[in-house]
């Protein structure tokens, strides 16, 4: 499984949305499923999945799927394509 697939899987499972809905443009709080509580669960799952511990400011900045990839890249998690 690629990192991109892993990321989509985490978002899809935690937010309980279809994998197809996990796009770079998906923004925090733009859908009811991605609220502050879900965001914490999401971060916890992403940290476990990619074996990283994010800085608090990075967690706060994780405002979209695209931003999430950008932040994870700082922790040497790269996304193809």
């Amino acid at each position, binding site marked *: 499984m690629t990192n991109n697939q892993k990321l989509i899987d985490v978002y899809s499972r935690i937010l309980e949305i279809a994998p197809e809905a996990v796009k770079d443009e998906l923004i925090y709080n733009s859908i009811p499923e991605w*609220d502050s*509580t879900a*965001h*914490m669960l999401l*971060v*916890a799952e992403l940290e476990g999945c990619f074996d990283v511990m994010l800085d*608090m400011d990075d*967690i*706060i900045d994780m405002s979209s799927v695209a931003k999430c990839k950008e932040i994870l890249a700082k922790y040497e998690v790269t996304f193809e394509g």
Partner: protein
Amino acid sequence: MSSYRLGSITLAEIQPEDLEQLREWRNSPDIRAMMCDQSKISVEQQRSWYESLASSGATHFVARYKSVPIGYVNLKSISEPAVYEAGLYTGDARYRGTVVSFLMALAQIDFAFEQLSAQKLVATVKSENIAAIRFNETLGYQKQREAEGMWHMTLSADAYQVARAKLAGFIR
């Protein structure tokens, strides 16, 4: 105790220099909208409130994230022994609804159970404030009754420990 720390959050005793920032937050439309009393607070009212704090029997803190003020926390003793009413708001909109707000609440609740020897906390949330209700439920609060557009919620030490264990990984 003048301050209490949990990770990057510090709950600090309110100082005169914090008053204007607290008043500004309290008067902002989005904070006022969630309050029972939605009137604006004047400078004089704020000063009177501050002067009454020492004798209020309640605990009031300004919450700081990495030393920067971001919100307000209080714990008020109610008539029932060892039961406190918990209130808080994240004044700085950048941190509202983020993990920092959860940390602020964890610091508040830890303080209540550890330092005040609380046995139970109560909170009242507007029924329309779904995000705050879910926020509280994540912390272990349970809905008790709904009256006059408000949900009355309670938090036991046991329920909090279960909830806290799931959130503890974010204390940093």
